């Protein structure tokens, strides 16, 4: 008889649209996820980038830095994966409308790399239809696999 799998654990945060709160929230989530089986580099780099960029986008472009609006972060983690959902109170946006920031005509722009990095470093980046909520999935990899692939 196989051993029962451990139940997933979760973290739920509601934070104000304060850019100074981003790293504290990310640090809290990362410290909780350290008990998961996720490789340390994928936590330190991939999850940090995904959460930091999603939170910054939610505060800057979703909630337009309105201090009355909040961002909700729900993270579920278990042995195989970490799933993080970041939701703002804004009107949403079209993620397909964001150009590739690595092209010659865009590479010297100051903005526009956040969503690109999220897509590069996470296994899934899925927006809801309105575009005000993004779900990030980071799967655990076998030992020796490249951290960013």
């Amino acid at each position, binding site marked *: 008889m196989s051993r029962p799998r451990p139940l997933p654990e979760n973290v739920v945060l509601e934070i104000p649209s304060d*850019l*100074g709160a*981003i*790293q*504290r929230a990310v*640090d809290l989530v*990362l410290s909780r996820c350290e008990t998961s089986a996720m490789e340390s*580099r994928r936590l*330190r*780099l991939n999850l*940090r*980038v995904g959460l*930091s*960029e999603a939170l*910054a986008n939610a505060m*800057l472009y979703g909630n337009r830095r309105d201090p009355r609006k909040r961002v909700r972060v729900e993270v579920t983690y278990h042995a195989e994966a970490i799933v993080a959902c970041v939701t703002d109170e804004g009107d949403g946006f079209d993620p397909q409308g964001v150009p590739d*920031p*690595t092209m010659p005509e865009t*590479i*010297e*722009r*100051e*903005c*526009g*790399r*956040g969503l*690109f*990095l999220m897509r*590069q*470093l996470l296994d899934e980046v899925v927006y809801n239809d309105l575009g005000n909520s993004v779900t990030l999935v980071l799967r655990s990899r076998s030992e020796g696999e490249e*951290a*960013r692939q």
Partner: protein
Amino acid sequence: MEAILGFSVSREGDVTVIEVEGQLIVGNRQELKQMVLEELERGERTFVVDFDRTEYIDSSGLGVLVSLSKKIREQGGELVLAGLNEDLRTLFELTKLDTLFTITNDRAQALQGL
């Protein structure tokens, strides 16, 4: 991760060295931008940004470096990056910004090349 946010400026001959301690992120990028623009205004033209004590750079931090590099080049100057750890180098490679910047292993190598 300790969230120390700080920049310090020093001179090495004609080169202005800016050390980033902790993180370069959306919450402090304007501070770095202002600091470099003031140095540029004072007539400084050659800059090294030393990331030896930097743990994290977000997309806003990358963006401010792109913007500063452009402004410095427009003034006939040069901006060199030094001391990026493996994670930070990965971010430059993914965004292809490693093709836009001169990146050196450490401050000494950066100064040697200027």
